[in-house]
């Protein structure tokens, strides 16, 4: 529907204003990125793109195509948003019915999207040296963070992990945005936790790290929690959970978080998908 630029506080006395779009967008392209991933580019209106933030997501109404009949919407991180060009990008892995249907979309088809949704990444003023650690499709979620870091003139190191060098995505993208890349792969034996810990510790000792960013993986979470605690480095993690509404209404997307000595259930779609890395709980 319509939109305003800031997300209103829900509990305040006044009425909430519409800030979330639900709209059919035209597909500009939908191409394989490598054997496992596809990039979907949609034409989006400026006022929608102006609202987008790195780390937020959209809830996509996957079409009934190719014999698939996905019912619920599918959440997808914003892979890129370009208000100047009027483009909204997603990077996705074909997993089940919904993404199989997405993969059938052709130029000119329409896709109904709802968003932007959720809380994006935080980059505090004094966080100058950022490090992101991600694997696989997690890079989709972290990619726009590189754009944002670049816009804000921060230094970003991207530790990109994959099974095989062929599957390392977004590297060029990160490089273009001036990020330093550290690729690690299973095939080359460089992606083990021990090796990663060593690489990170060297940076902490050397140039220094002001904040960590990661997503999705339990192993990376515990590693970064440990290093973060050890050196007092803050960080954020983007998490996933099954969703229905994507807006905060249904409470199906909760995960447990540590708040002091209590465990609280927070909604990934609303309080997240980005959370404080120390509050997140391994699963």
């Amino acid at each position, binding site marked *: 529907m319509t939109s305003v630029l800031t997300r209103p506080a829900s509990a305040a006395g006044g009425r*909430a204003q519409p800030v*979330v779009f639900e709209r059919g967008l035209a597909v500009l392209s939908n191409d394989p990125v490598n054997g496992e991933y596809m990039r979907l580019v949609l034409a989006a209106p400026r006022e929608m793109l102006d609202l987008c933030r790195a780390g937020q997501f959209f809830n996509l109404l996957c079409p009934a195509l190719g014999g698939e009949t996905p019912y619920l919407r599918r959440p997808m991180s914003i892979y890129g948003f370009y208000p100047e060009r009027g483009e909204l990008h997603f990077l996705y892995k074909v997993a089940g019915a919904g993404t199989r249907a997405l993969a059938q979309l052709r130029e000119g088809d329409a896709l109904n999207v709802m968003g932007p949704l959720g809380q994006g990444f935080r980059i505090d003023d004094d966080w100058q040296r950022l490090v992101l650690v991600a694997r696989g499709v997690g890079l989709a979620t972290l990619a726009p963070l590189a754009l944002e870091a670049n816009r804000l003139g921060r230094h970003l190191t991207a530790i990109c992990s994959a099974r095989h060098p062929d599957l390392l995505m977004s590297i060029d993208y990160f490089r273009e945005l001036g990020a330093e890349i550290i690729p690690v792969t299973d095939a080359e034996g460089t992606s083990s936790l021990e090796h990663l810990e060593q690489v990170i510790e060297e940076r902490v000792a050397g140039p220094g790290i002001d904040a960590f960013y990661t997503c999705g993986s339990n192993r990376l979470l515990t590693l970064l929690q440990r290093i973060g605690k050890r050196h007092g480095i803050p960080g954020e993690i983007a998490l996933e959970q099954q969703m229905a*509404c994507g*807006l905060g209404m249904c409470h199906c997307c909760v995960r447990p978080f540590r708040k002091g000595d209590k465990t609280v259930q927070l909604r990934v779609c609303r309080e997240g998908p980005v959370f404080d890395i120390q509050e997140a709980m391994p699963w």
Partner: protein
Amino acid sequence: MVDLSVDIAGLTLKNPIMPASGTFSEELAEVFDIECLGAHVTKTITRGLRDGNPTPRVCEVGSSMLNSIGIPSKGVSAFLDKVVPFYRAYETPLVVSISGNTADEFARLCSEVTVEGVAAIEVNISCPNIEEDGKAFAIRPSSTYDVMRKLRAATHLPLWAKLTPNTGETPEVARAAQEGGADALVVANTLLAMAIDIRTRRPKLGNLMGGLSGPSLKPIALRMAYQCAKSTTIPVIGCGGISTAEDVIEFLIAGATAVQVGTATFINPTAMVTVIAELERYLEREKLSSVRDLIGTLIDEEQKEGVVFMEAAP
């Protein structure tokens, strides 16, 4: 101009379209102006704090879904402090959904939410009654009657009793609810169901089973709405699988005075807005001046002996 307003036990709604409990919250106001709805219905709360069920809490089954959210609740005082004031900014009547595992706790909550700004109380009697065998109050007429009596005594606000489809005695339960003091019936909640992931051999829901909602539920909920309208004299609010204006019209013809839209909002967050507009256009096309002219107009005399009280198919 067609008149979309309906009356539910003395409460006038500007149109018969409202959200179903648990599928609506303040957040939907970020998508459209929720003042356009016939009523605002909040997620069921309990008196105390509750975490809700383990995840995964939803899954897809065909073109419908299962959920086992449970009733995560921040408790009644958080509700009165934060949620009720949000809705005061709207003229749309606020309907508060409550539940309890014992009749007394339930009744106590009922009186606690009887505050200014609340227009009616929806009592979710589809929840387990732990003082008996853990079956929902609304599975049997006797437990329905007993809990409704206590709830009735606890408030002067209109009481909407929300029934469960997990029963073989819908007409009897509906009558028991009316006799116990219900001012309207919400028909119905989700139907107990299950799905298994054959790769992992685990239930698709963390809670093993959950409630079916969405299009698959529609013919069942419609049958129940019809049965309830036939067997009581209080207004029936249809609920279950409604996603289009045609669905709404089907329920109104069957005898519902208003309807609730649940799962459809997850698929299409503006579903209710579209349904209101299309309902209005339909009435104009059919040259009906009021939506009330549709209610209970099913031509069913030929089936007089019918199966209103027959719970057995074929």
